């Protein structure tokens, strides 16, 4: 197993952990923040896969703008899931 594989495997584990945490989370604001973390991990993986274009877009869209849009919605609908 090369260091590259270890790196890949760690990121994949981080991704799955984040996704599971998002699924369990009752606090929607925390879920959105976790989704940002998830997006950043994904974009790390994509730089590693030789896709810098995609990684840049994902960093700006997934981690930045999506979170802002979600937060503005949460400000009006309440942050707790019933």
């Amino acid at each position, binding site marked *: 197993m090369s260091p590259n594989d270890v790196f890949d495997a760690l990121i994949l584990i981080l991704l799955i952990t984040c996704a599971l945490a998002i699924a369990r989370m009752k606090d929607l604001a925390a879920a959105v923040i976790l989704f940002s973390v998830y997006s950043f991990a994904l974009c790390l993986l994509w730089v590693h896969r030789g896709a810098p*274009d995609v990684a*840049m877009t994902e960093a*700006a*869209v997934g981690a930045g*703008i999506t979170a*802002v*849009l979600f937060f503005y919605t949460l400000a*009006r609908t309440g942050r707790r899931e019933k």
Partner: protein
Amino acid sequence: MRNALALLIVIVLAGLMMAGVSQLPPPGSPDGAVHRHVAAHYIDGGTEAGGAPNLVTAVLLNYRALDTYGEVVVIFAALVAVLAVGLSGHSRGPRRQPDELPVSPVVDRIIRLLAPFIALFALFMILEGHVLPGGGFQGGVVLGALLILLSLVLGPRRIRRMLPTPALFWTRAIAPLVFALTAIAGLALAGWLFALPEPAWLRELILVGLELAIGIGAALALVGFYLSLEADHHD
């Protein structure tokens, strides 16, 4: 009960997908389906046929320009739908207004300091997108993020004043318009839609124009999404 049923469905589906995925060649092997057909041709074609050294841009703006046109139209349609469905001028749900926290002077100063650099970087990504990683969408997204950041710090009203409505009306549609123009120009000059005409400088000019249009369109779409979600005093 319903959750258990959903879990069962998901597990069955995941099992089927696992079975399908295990038939694929392992990721990274050069004989995957993705690498064998047109991709090899695109890479061999190089800068001459593709029009841009960044092959992603070449695929987006030259080989698959029609697809990109469709996508640009999708984004524009989403923007129109958001603006139409948005709560502007309607009875709004009570917004849980946090008592106004004035912007910290530190944050305000730093954002003002950094904003020109971010804008420069976004422009660089758009204009150099056919050579280096980057391009219309990436740069446009960064530009949109910058505008959103500014409106978080300076207040949405300032941003609205920066983007006056009559100008916005046409600028929002710039990406589909420029794409349609390019398609027709290609048809007239070289015989097929989105053809890039011969002299190299003209090609590059067209590519940069397309990138700029995509970038501005994407940035304005993002700002439009943001403003209509944020809207308390939409005009």
